[in-house]
């Protein structure tokens, strides 16, 4: 169920010397909220390091690490050689040494040289050693399409990582979550793939006040972001806004849709989804990723198991197609949008 942010009563450490993390609320984009979250995490723990390509002077190609090298130094914000296996592999070694590395992968399509290290070491060291070796590494991955880019810059590979035992996979969809979730991921003792919806980084429409003194939601909790009765939309990352827009449009026609932001793709927190489906009887899972063997596949399987007698229609999916990401001139067809979501809602209602 929805768990709104509580009022400020947490023991948040105050850093009067911090240049840009005031305790009061302000209007932030997702990108700026991530930047402030990273800054706060680095202030709170000097074992937190940032590793990535162009994360130093440039501040990252999306400017998410803007200003951090200037304030924390080149030994804490590392412009690395152009080698993703190296970024992940050395982060593992740094974590074994006691650091908490935060890796930036420039675009999701470039993560695969690091896939071996992610799968073979990062995800398995804790299990291999039965907890003797902890690897608290965060890998930040800008993902998703809609930016008119060339190949390898618009994909949604999160399901590949959610399939790996030992890893956790999360995604933020608004500035408040961006600020808190990145800090929670960094303080977690488990390795976490942190997927960031790149086309929303600098969205002015999503700007929101962030109460930096609030008590945040649990990291691995899904959340009802809009309540409704007719059908349930479940989504994460870049499709949350698509679903909210669809729900607004449906409401204009008198149909109230419930929208659930998964936030965590591994582990999945499906209890709120089950609760919702038991009330609405209809579920549409929405994701930019190809549908086959994906996060949405898992949702379908688990919902039919737990909500079998509550379903008024099969669980439907609105996703990218089972193709490589197309040339960007075609991406408006490929990406789930408001119309495709509402079309699926209509099919579910007419079943």
């Amino acid at each position, binding site marked *: 169920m929805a768990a709104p942010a509580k009022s400020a009563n947490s023991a948040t450490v105050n850093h009067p010397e911090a240049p840009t993390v005031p305790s009061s609320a302000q209007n932030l984009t997702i990108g700026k909220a991530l930047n402030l979250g990273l800054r706060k995490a680095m202030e709170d723990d000097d074992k937190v390091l940032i590793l990535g390509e162009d994360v130093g002077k440039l501040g990252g190609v999306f400017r998410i690490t803007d200003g951090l090298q200037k304030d924390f130094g080149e030994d804490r914000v590392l412009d690395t050689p152009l080698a993703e296996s190296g970024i992940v592999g050395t982060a593992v070694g740094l974590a074994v040494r006691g650091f908490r590395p935060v890796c930036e992968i420039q675009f999701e399509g470039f993560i695969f040289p690091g896939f071996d290290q992610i799968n073979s070491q990062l995800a398995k060291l804790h299990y291999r050693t039965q907890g003797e070796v902890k690897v608290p590494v965060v890998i930040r991955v800008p993902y998703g399409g809609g930016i008119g880019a060339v190949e390898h810059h618009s994909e949604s590979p999160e399901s590949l990582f959610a399939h790996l035992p030992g890893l956790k996979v999360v995604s933020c969809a608004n500035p408040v979550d961006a600020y808190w979730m990145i800090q929670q991921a960094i303080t*977690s003792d488990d390795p976490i793939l942190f997927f960031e919806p790149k086309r929303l980084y600098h969205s002015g429409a999503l700007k929101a006040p962030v109460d930096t003194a609030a008590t945040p939601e649990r990291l691995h909790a899904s959340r009802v972001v809009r309540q409704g009765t007719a059908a349930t939309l479940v989504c994460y990352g870049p499709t949350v806004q698509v679903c909210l827009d669809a729900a607004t449009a449906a409401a204009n026609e008198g149909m109230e849709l419930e929208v659930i932001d998964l936030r965590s793709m591994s582990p999945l927190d499906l209890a709120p989804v089950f609760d919702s489906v038991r009330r609405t009887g209809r579920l549409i899972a929405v994701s930019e990723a190809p549908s086959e063997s994906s996060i949405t596949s898992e949702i379908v399987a688990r919902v039919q198991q737990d909500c079998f007698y509550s379903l008024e229609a099969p669980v439907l999916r609105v996703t990218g197609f089972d193709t490589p990401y197309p040339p960007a001139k075609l991406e408006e067809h490929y990406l789930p949008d408001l119309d495709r979501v509402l079309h699926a809602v209509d099919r579910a209602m007419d079943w």
Partner: protein
Amino acid sequence: MSSPEQWAQPDQGADAAATAGQPSAEQVIAGLRATTEGGADLIQLLTPEGERVASPIFDPYVADVDNESLRELYRDLVIVRRADREANAMQRQGQLGIWVPLLGQEAAQIGSGRALRPKDMAFPSYREHGVGYARGVDFKELLGIFRCSDQGQWDFAKHRFHPYTIVIGNQVLNACGYAMGQKFEGKVGNQENDGDNEATICYFGDGATSQGDVHEGFVWAAVYDAPLVFFCQNNQWAISEPTERQSRLPLYQRARGYGFPGMRVDGNDVLGCLAVTRWALDACRNGNGPVLIEAFTYRMDAHTTTDDPTRYRLSDELEAWKLKDPIERVRVHLTRNGGADADFFAEVDKAADDFAAELRDFCFNMPDPPPERIFSNVYAEPSPVLDAQREEFLSYLDGFATAGGER
């Protein structure tokens, strides 16, 4: 004989007479250089015949090795070989699922392993039982991996001996990150207090040098001046593939391209391996790392107990290498210079047999892990999903026990 350096970078202006002794292009492409011993470049302090060779550079690094120390090194070598043979036999008897023999590589592992200080860190591949022994890991604790009852359960932090890494080359980057951490923590280059300084050593084989992770490790260690000793045991074979399938160039010469020292040591010479590794670790602790050491040795047994080397190599190669045995040369040296007598050698043999018997007894009595072990420690934080899977599965298993009880 012309040096491999010249072969790699032929002098365009050289006249015909100067190049006459050089190998043909075909020979170069065949990579013959990669498997030659390195000639004058090979560092050796103890010959296969047990003769001590003077080395102005490296002698100071083993100046403390008197007969007593050499006897202890000999003991290490014999015990590690005996334990290796026992484990190999236990695999043949079905007590281990697989064994990865180190036969022939004892000197490379003991020499380098004994060069480490307690604060130094070691990242092994999966054949480094001798290094583990030198780091104080109980040899019994290495068996669980090969009995397939655990995946490595020694005290990693205490021994500073990382879990075995089976994916070829992965550990090189992990070691590099660890070494970077040592540097970031100021554990490198402390002039006043060398005792505060630390270094990391990383083990891999000739086959691993083809892996991208090893290349990336070389690049990263170089650009961050990481205190990392790359210790490559070139045992000539990556399962069935000879070193010339991995490189045209002698492996130690690759270091030059990355901008740090590379050297080739006789990997069957425990004294040479000790000296060279001490030199390299010192360089790293002083802030001059990284260093690549190629220990030129030979895998005298199969890749693992599942392998059959008779399919791909000739026995006369093995016979030739037996003449360069890492243990025999120490025995000859100690005998010849009066450093040990027959009683000592008999006592070491007895100690090795006792060690093996203890290993055997432990292995035969090693319990299987309980089924719930499948679900434990996948994550550091609690996992309700896995808790539920575990309970469901244990309940399913209980169903059999109940059914059996009723019959």
